[in-house]
């Protein structure tokens, strides 16, 4: 087999041999500050205050946000959700998906660059690394240096803080499912954690530590599916991080204040700072690449350089491919943002978001579900009346006890044969068996078959509200069912 290389290109130089597996070079991004870095830090602070802070809040004597999987009740401030409310989770995911579509269509991978936990935790871990080991150059030097006490102290300090943050993150994650930060001050941090809680704290902690400390850009490049499909959502009118090659090339060094054109060069002085700050280690000057997470670190650093060189900012900037190619101004580019797909995404997003909010606000304080009894279709009771049995599942969606009154309507003569008032404890769900009777004359008049009828389940009222009538509480549900008259 050896030596039978078929020439595949007309290049004169012999083709180089390359391995299909490589050890990825460690990327040591340089710290950056500027307009977009500030935005990223803002998002780091706001998302993490929310994440670390929420489990500490209490509401009505319990944790404000608690997803109690064992009891299948999900508390979000004043709201109690039952597993039957999983539609809201679906709604939330649809909202998240359409937001991703919209943001990506307008300005590329905004999510990746500013808000994704992978970016956020990497930012935090990099900041810690910077405090202990210094900036890019110092870290590269430290990597190459032999082990010494100083290196051990720097590395060890970093590891301790990383591990502490990771464990705290794991603990916070678990706190959403098991009350860890107990409401009462004296029992606070009296951790009574079972084996599963311990496992999840360590697991989530390890994931944080490994992903933010070591995997970093590898997650975006090789693991994350969103990274890849967001690239497919860009079009030529999407604002992406672009290097203005026409303005920058031919690149080369020059003295400060010297007009680039006068020395036959472009504005790029080839300082390579844009490469040094890049968390994925790419050269943005090669154009749009799948590795680019849109963090805009190169924009921040290049603007600083342009300021020093007394050249206008924006050699690297948010620009559309059309905008760069046709030399559009910023305004001309922004005008193209409101293109049909952006408008459609926005309209769908607004529609779903308003439906979502409206449905949460108008949510009934209880749920009801009627199921016909599976045992008997119908039975004949004393006096020749026909009886059908139903199970009504009542779910109390509040944290106070509720009294329900149940009645039937829509079938002349039908009435409940068994008790009709039910009291449910806070957040309780219960099956209530009910029998509905139909007098013999009414049954005869209707004839055999399944006849539609409705259950009226009203809250608190002594007297049920009839159709079209307003009751005091006016909280009533009508559940459709059928009444079977046998042959």
């Amino acid at each position, binding site marked *: 087999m050896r030596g039978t290389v078929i020439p595949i290109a007309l290049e004169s130089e012999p083709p180089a041999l390359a391995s299909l597996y490589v050890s990825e070079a460690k990327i040591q991004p340089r710290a950056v500050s500027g307009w977009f870095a500030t935005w990223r830090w803002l998002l780091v602070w706001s998302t993490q205050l929310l994440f670390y802070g929420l489990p500490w809040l209490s509401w009505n004597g319990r944790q404000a946000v608690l997803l109690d999987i064992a009891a299948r009740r999900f508390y979000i401030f004043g709201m109690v959700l039952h597993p039957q409310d999983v539609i809201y989770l679906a709604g939330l995911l649809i909202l998240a998906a359409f937001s991703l579509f919209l943001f990506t269509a307008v300005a590329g991978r905004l999510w990746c660059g500013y808000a994704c936990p992978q970016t956020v935790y990497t930012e935090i871990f990099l900041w810690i690394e910077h405090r202990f080991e210094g900036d890019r150059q110092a870290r590269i030097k430290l990597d190459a240096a032999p082990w010494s006490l100083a290196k051990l102290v720097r590395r060890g300090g970093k590891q301790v803080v990383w591990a502490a943050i990771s464990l705290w993150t794991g603990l916070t994650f678990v706190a959403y499912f098991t009350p860890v930060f107990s409401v009462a001050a004296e029992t606070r941090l009296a951790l009574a954690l079972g084996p599963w809680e311990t496992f999840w704290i360590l697991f989530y902690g390890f994931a944080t530590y490994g992903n933010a400390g070591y995997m970093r850009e*590898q997650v975006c490049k*090789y693991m994350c599916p969103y990274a890849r499909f967001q690239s497919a959502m860009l079009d030529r009118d999407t604002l992406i991080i672009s290097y203005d090659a026409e303005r920058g090339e031919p690149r080369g060094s020059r003295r400060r204040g010297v007009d680039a054109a006068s020395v036959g060069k472009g504005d790029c002085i080839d300082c390579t700072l844009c490469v040094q700050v890049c968390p994925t280690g790419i050269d943005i000057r090669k154009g749009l690449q799948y590795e680019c997470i849109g963090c805009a670190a190169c924009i921040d650093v290049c603007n600083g350089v342009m300021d020093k060189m007394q050249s206008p900012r924006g050699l690297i900037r948010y620009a559309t491919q059309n905008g760069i190619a046709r030399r559009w101004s910023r305004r001309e580019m922004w005008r193209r943002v409101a293109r049909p797909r952006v408008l459609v995404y926005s309209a769908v997003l607004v529609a779903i978001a308003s439906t979502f909010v409206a449905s949460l606000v108008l949510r009934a304080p209880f749920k009801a579900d009627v199921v016909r009894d599976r045992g008997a279709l119908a039975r004949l009771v004393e006096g020749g009346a026909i009886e059908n049995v139903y199970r009504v599942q009542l779910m109390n969606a509040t944290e106070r006890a509720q009294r329900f009154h149940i009645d039937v309507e829509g079938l002349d003569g039908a009435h409940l044969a068994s008790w009709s008032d039910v009291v449910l404890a806070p957040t309780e769900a219960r099956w209530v068996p009910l029998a509905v009777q139909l007098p013999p004359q009414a049954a005869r008049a209707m004839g055999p078959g399944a006849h539609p009828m409705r259950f009226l389940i009203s809250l608190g009222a002594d007297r049920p509200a009839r159709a079209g009538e307003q009751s005091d509480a006016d909280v009533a549900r009508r559940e459709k069912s059928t009444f079977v008259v046998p042959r």
Partner: protein
Amino acid sequence: MSDFFSSGWSIFIAVATVASLLACLVLLALASKRKPMASDNSTGHVFDEDLVEMNNPLPLWWVWLFVLTVVFAFAYVYAFPGLGAHAGSLGWTSRGELDADQARASQAMAKVYAVYEQQPAEALSRDTNAMAIGQRLFINNCSTCHGSDARGSKGFPNLTDTDWLHGGSPEKIEETITLGRTGVMPSMAAAVGSARDVHDVANYVLSLSGDPHNPISAAAGRKKFVVCAACHGADGKGNQAIGAPNLADRTWLHGWGEDAIVDIVDHGKTNVMPAQRGRLTPAQIHLLASYVWSLSQVRQTASR
């Protein structure tokens, strides 16, 4: 491995599994050979005129992760069943896991029931938590026949009234649930006499509860009722000791009217309540019996 009619299949599966796992490693090793690349860092392959295959090498951590999964697979099929008939060094079976789960569940449940085990039905009927558990037990185990509301249907007794075939004390109900009951009404046509006589007896039985009947027929049937009285009593009020129903009330378990009575006298009836011992624990049966008992109590005290 009763699924296999020949041990050859077991060997085939074991060999195929191990070979596939090894093939994964061989594939990785083969692909690790260096390949020539064009100067533009492409493999030189061009598809559909302009699709160029670039050289995007796999990161080494990914390769090691892959090796790790193969190592894990070997450890897994060693420890758990996976290689044909090999049972695995841990001796795990799905049946064993189910048994362990059930043992754990009944252990957890025993604690819940321990609170109620020593309490009499009267006390339990006032305990809303106990009654909620009782209702769930009833719906899961009894409602198929007796209905979710325990009011039964034709052939399946109503448990919410005060009419009991075998006695309605909590102890009797517990006994009924534990051991089950078999109610036998033999075919009495021959003993009663002619079809005319059966018709007369049926009318007499209807007259006992004051239901519409033919008085002349009933009067004639009165004499013939002697053969029924052996079980149902001279006054037709039944006998709970042998499960003979009261014929003088308005409960008609197997159907109301002359035709239904004639049919049952002619052909008899065997009705079975299956024993729940073995399906439910004594503690569960105690709670369930208390719940069933409470149903008729509620109806007595809180009836409209």
